[in-house]
């Protein structure tokens, strides 16, 4: 006879789904899931039915029809005969440009301002407080429109350059007008041509060559440094390598530029506008400035929070070791503060990218302006374009956060 008895084997009854705590939570979850799915299905079905009733069933073939409109800022080839999908790509590239430019500037400004707000200098810290509070408490759309208005009203129009009321700056190489900035462009007289990538867009071989040479020089230069480090560790004497490193960094690129026949193309006033050079449009610049300044205010607060989260003992210890104030900040405080700063920084990057969809307020043709603006309007495909647009922003945002999360994992406190 066995010493223990089996627990009474109950057969499963339906009522147990509710009265038995082992199953109840599962039941609730399944019911909630079914309700959610049913709700979602009903919404999708309703949309499909209503679109069908309107005679506009969901279809994406319009994307391959000629767009018919022109876009001013385009980094890939595009004209009014290109399909809508290409217009969307032009817009997507413009969105990415503003996102990258904005995030970079906002980070630099934000870190500087955040640190300065903690300054012991009363005036500096109060000025930064005023900056942060004004920028983050006014809607970003107003900042964008405001920057653009100032830009248009205060800068001279190109025709004032003809009458002599305005002149070009920096040895006649740069023109600041209310249509944007015209700066010199790099040109190559012995150009290597372009690579056609699947016939979709072209990449300049010159640019690729320059990048390749720069990367190789940098790696070689690092190798020299590592060798010097090794010798120093082994012998205690550091060989003099600065001239090797400078040479490796600059000679190859100078030679390459000479071979390619590098020269600058200067902007020149011809007809209505400046021709030649690179045109940084007023819309791009004002959007960039406004988004950077606005987001910088939030980043500054994140930076301040991060710095304040590092315990006071750390800076006291650093001072005790004889580190200067800036060394303490750069070597001790900031590396530790980064762990606190990065998570809110990710969401600020996402915010900036999403806020860039306000671009149409100043006529910057980002993807909201092309795909969900003109294309939507000319084709009347609201549902399709907006679904695509949401997917695009979702993809951009998820990419940003995965990169940033990877970085966060790299710098966060390693616990073993």
């Amino acid at each position, binding site marked *: 006879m066995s010493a223990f008895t089996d627990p009474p084997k109950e057969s499963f009854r339906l009522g147990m789904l509710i009265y038995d705590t082992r199953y109840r939570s599962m039941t609730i979850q399944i019911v909630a899931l079914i309700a959610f799915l049913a709700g979602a299905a009903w919404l999708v079905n309703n949309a499909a039915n209503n679109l069908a*009733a309107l005679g506009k069933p969901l279809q994406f073939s319009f994307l391959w029809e000629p767009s018919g*409109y022109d876009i001013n800022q385009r980094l890939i080839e595009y004209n009014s005969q290109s399909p809508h999908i290409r217009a969307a790509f032009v817009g997507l590239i413009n969105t990415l440009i503003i996102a990258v430019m904005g995030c970079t500037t906002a980070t630099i400004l934000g870190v500087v301002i955040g640190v300065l707000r903690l300054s012991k200098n009363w005036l500096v810290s109060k000025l930064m407080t005023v900056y942060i509070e004004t920028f983050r408490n006014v809607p970003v759309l107003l900042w964008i429109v405001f920057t653009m208005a100032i830009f248009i009203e205060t800068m001279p129009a190109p025709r004032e350059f003809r009458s002599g009321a305005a002149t070009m700056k920096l040895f006649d190489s740069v023109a600041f007008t209310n249509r944007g900035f015209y700066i010199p462009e790099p040109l190559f007289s012995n150009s290597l041509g372009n690579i056609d990538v699947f016939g979709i867009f072209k990449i300049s071989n010159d640019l690729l060559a320059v990048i390749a040479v720069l990367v190789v020089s940098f790696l070689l230069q690092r190798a020299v440094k590592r060798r010097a480090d090794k010798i120093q560790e082994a012998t205690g004497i550091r060989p003099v390598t600065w001239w090797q490193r400078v040479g490796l960094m600059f000679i190859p690129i100078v030679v390459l530029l000479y071979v390619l026949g590098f020269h600058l193309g200067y902007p020149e006033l011809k007809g209505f506008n400046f021709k030649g050079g690179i045109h940084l449009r007023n819309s791009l610049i004002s959007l960039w400035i406004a988004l950077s300044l606005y987001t910088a205010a939030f980043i500054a607060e994140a930076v301040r929070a991060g710095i304040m989260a590092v315990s006071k003992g750390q800076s006291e210890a650093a001072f005790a070791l004889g580190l200067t104030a800036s060394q303490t900040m750069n070597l001790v405080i900031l590396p530790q503060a980064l762990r606190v700063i990065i998570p809110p920084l990710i969401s600020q990057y996402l915010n900036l990218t999403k806020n860039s969809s306000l671009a149409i307020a100043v006529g910057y043709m980002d993807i909201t302006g092309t795909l969900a603006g003109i294309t939507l309007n000319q084709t009347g495909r609201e549902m399709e374009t907006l679904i695509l647009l949401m997917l695009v922003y979702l993809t951009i945002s998820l990419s940003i956060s995965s990169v940033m999360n990877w970085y966060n994992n790299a710098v966060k406190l390693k616990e073993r």
Partner: protein
Amino acid sequence: MKKSAFFGALTVAGFAAAMASAGTLDDVKAKGFLQCGVSTGLVGFAAPDSNGNWAGFDVSLCRAVAAAVLGDPQAVKFTPTTGKTRFTALASGEVDMLARNTTWTFSRDVDLKFTFDGINYYDGQGFMVPKSLGVSSAKELDGATVCIQTGTTTELNLADFFRANKMKYEPVPIETNAEARQQFLAGACDVYTTDRSGLAATRATFENPDNYVVLPEVISKEPLGPLTRQGDDQWSDIVRWTLNALISAEELGITSANIDELAKGTNNPEINRILGTEGNLGGMLGLDKKWAYNAIKAGGNYGEIFEKYIGEKTAIGLSRGLNAQWKDGGLIYSPPFR
């Protein structure tokens, strides 16, 4: 409608695929007012005055429809729409009709699923430049920076015009007329292009209108008219025949001054049919017998509205041109009331 309103709130775009089935008339009657989509402010066509009351050529059509349907020209709520938002506003049921310098085109009529209910202004796209630029023809605009209202037919015409003439230009897309005005006056664009009526209206608001010229070229046909959702024929008929009533009224000499006199009965059977003293045209539309009487009484006939808001005596100063009655050599023509 409730179903689609709920759905609209849930979609990010706020775009509800409203049912296009019949019922706008019943909706309007139940609401007690007409929701009319107009432009965001184009003096002469649709702009709020100093008291906040909307007035203008397009606004008058909304008021006429409200008078025809509800008997009260004031029973209108106006939704300002941009070139970009107007079609979504109409398709989603946010507005009952659009009276907003909208060009009748094939794709809008067929593909966007709207019904154009006639033409109240025959227009064409033109260019405005500062006189100081010294340009006398649009063919000299190679390389110019051009301000355009985004989401309009003008955007497409412009691309076609410059392509056909092998010229380059820099488009500056803007959303509203006010932004265009700011950029144009500051010299951020050399040229402003839109329908010539719009150019005239915008120029009239400048401090020194004489410093700006509208170039002679007309690069497109822009028949502007009211539109409604496709599939609600009764409602479309009401808007179409209200416009026709205003046009016929001018042709037949019915004015806001003599309408009460004429409504007592005349020898002209067509006037009698329009004003409801003979036959029952209103009943066929599902409206009151006095529908056209109310519509004309609201702001006068087509000619009176034209002269009052955009005619030669106003700051906008448009001549009738193509928009004269057919018997005066224009294109304005109404089918008979019979």
